[in-house]
């Protein structure tokens, strides 16, 4: 009998990665990568990757599924606009990030001429327009629809605001020839988050418009489908691993840290309800599967801001190095975004930078707890998710794979006495995505969830038993 295989491709900004999965044993049987060639013809890079994969197989099998995600050509670049920054704008932001988008900017209240110019100049792939609860404020979303209608924007607009204003806003935009997709309000009632329909709309616009607009559809014939932006695939993979599938248990609540060259992403699959008694939860409800993106915390493109935030001395101290050496390595990293550390000293600095990025990104993602003193005693107020009891913490991204101490970097996401107000994981099992397969799990989960789950459960590496102390630069 013949084994069946799945081909899972990620068109990254720099590399096109290929993973071939044996669907019976649920293991990766071959991996390859080739430079992404989205600027010329994206299929060139894919063809090269396939040849490299073929060298491992002898002859390429007939793949049962051939699926891809993409963050090439700048990823899915979105603008989100709402009314109040902490309410509908925040809900729209969460919808966009949860759909795997890269938010270039967000706007609140009325768009002024300068805002519209900035939107036109940044040439987003999608604009998500929200504002007003259902039956609430409709003036602002209508005015913003008018401003966008009269502008030179060419991208689709997703309407996810006050439903009472939906028809009129849609008319305003379509009359001026804009493409509009109308969906449910991201905040139908005060403090009620409803981002699933907007996420779904973003995904369908990605499939219907963006894949073609970015020239990714050239791979038609070589693949079945380019399904989603890569971050959305990673989030789906995380969700499947947390939840399990049809009686097969997953890991339960988990947090996933994805450190990249330009951003550090944190995903949590957990409701984040209070774990202590008598805690009052405030603020906008949290999405169960939540993704935050720290655009200022990247190990290559934004490495300078990491150093700015925690200081060169702290990085040097944590790397067991000197400020001069940190400066030298930093320059080398900034000059070449593809640079993988080669010396012990470079590795130590890279690890220290990654730890600093993970520390900040995790703290920004997790909720916080604050004690306030009321007339009848102290009360605890929680904002955001309580992740203190989650069972699993997963690290993914190049730095974890290259580092000699991935556990040390991942531990930077844990609760610590230096930030007692932060509801960070306390004692989770640490897992490493050594083979970079979370995106593959996410893609495969759409066609063969059982196999995708097995693949993830079997392939992530346990880190808890590894050494935890800092680096020895001389090693």
């Amino acid at each position, binding site marked *: 009998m013949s084994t069946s295989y799945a081909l899972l491709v990620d068109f990254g900004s720099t590399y096109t990665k290929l993973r071939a999965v044996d669907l019976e044993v649920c293991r990766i049987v071959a991996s390859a990568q080739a430079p992404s060639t989205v600027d010329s013809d994206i299929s060139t890079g894919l063809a090269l990757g396939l040849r490299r994969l073929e060298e491992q197989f002898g002859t390429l099998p007939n793949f049962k599924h051939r699926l891809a995600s993409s963050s090439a050509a700048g990823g899915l670049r979105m603008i989100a606009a709402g*009314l*109040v920054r*902490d*309410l*509908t704008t925040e809900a729209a932001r969460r919808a966009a990030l949860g759909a795997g988008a890269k938010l270039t900017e967000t706007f609140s209240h009325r768009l002024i001429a300068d805002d519209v110019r900035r939107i036109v100049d940044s040439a987003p792939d999608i604009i998500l327009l929200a*504002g*007003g*609860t259902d*039956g*609430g*404020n*409709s003036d602002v979303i209508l005015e913003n629809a008018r401003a966008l209608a009269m502008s030179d924007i060419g991208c689709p607009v997703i309407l996810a605001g006050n439903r009472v204003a939906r028809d009129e806003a849609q008319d305003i935009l379509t009359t001026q020839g804009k493409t509009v997709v109308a969906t449910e309000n991201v*905040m139908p*009632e*005060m*403090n009620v988050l409803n981002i699933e329909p907007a996420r779904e709309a973003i995904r369908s616009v990605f499939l219907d418009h963006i894949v073609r607009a970015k020239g990714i559809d050239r791979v038609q014939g070589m693949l079945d489908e380019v399904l989603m932006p890569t971050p959305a695939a990673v989030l789906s993979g995380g969700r499947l691993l947390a939840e399990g599938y049809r009686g097969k248990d997953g890991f339960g609540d988990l947090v996933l840290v994805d450190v990249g060259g330009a951003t550090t992403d944190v995903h949590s699959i957990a409701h984040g309800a209070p774990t202590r008694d008598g805690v*009052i939860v*405030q603020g906008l409800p949290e999405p169960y599967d939540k993704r935050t993106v720290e655009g200022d915390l990247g190990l290559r493109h934004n490495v300078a801001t990491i150093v700015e935030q925690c200081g060169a001395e702290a990085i040097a101290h944590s790397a067991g190095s000197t400020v001069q050496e940190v400066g030298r390595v930093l320059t080398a990293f900034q000059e070449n975004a593809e640079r993988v550390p080669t010396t012990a000293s470079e590795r130590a600095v890279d690890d220290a930078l990654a730890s600093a990025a993970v520390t900040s990104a995790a703290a920004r993602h997790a909720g916080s707890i604050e004690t*306030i*003193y*009321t*007339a*009848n005693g102290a*009360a605890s*107020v929680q904002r955001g998710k309580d992740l203190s009891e989650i069972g699993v913490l997963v690290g993914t991204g190049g730095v974890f794979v290259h580092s000699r101490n991935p556990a040390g970097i991942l531990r930077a996401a844990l609760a610590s006495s230096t930030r007692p107000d932060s509801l960070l994981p306390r004692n989770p099992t640490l897992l490493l995505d050594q083979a970079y397969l979370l995106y593959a799990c996410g893609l495969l989960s759409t066609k063969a969830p059982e196999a995708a789950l097995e693949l993830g459960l079997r392939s992530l590496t346990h880190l808890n038993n590894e050494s935890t102390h800092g680096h020895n630069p001389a090693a």
Partner: protein
Amino acid sequence: MTGETLITGVIGSDTHIVGNRILSMALEKAGFSVIALGALTPADDFIKAAIETDADAILVSSLYGQGELDCQGFRDLCIEAGLNEILLYVGGNLVVGKHPWPGVERRFLDMGFDRAFPPATRTDDVVEALTRDFEARRGRAGKAEP
């Protein structure tokens, strides 16, 4: 009843929710659309909710004696946020200690609240005041009731 939208909540570091909840239920029963923000609500949050929901009135409760501090500048916040016409009520144990009500009421009216209510106000009285105030506003705006 025309179903105006009302924001209710207990302002500041105040956890006394029961009276506010009873009031919110009574207002809802009277036909208003009520957005109840609950206990421990910062002044900002009342304003933000009023903007998104295009609310017609904000009803602030305070029971722990710090109401005067917490409500300082509340009307100004509304004006800054573009809520020029919004109706503002405040009620509860607004100050610490025994003070004659008229003086307390004066202080809150001077702060820009349209009405202030003493402890032990009946919910019916609030409904009646709202109805009257909304009617007066409709009259002022020259809009006939449908």
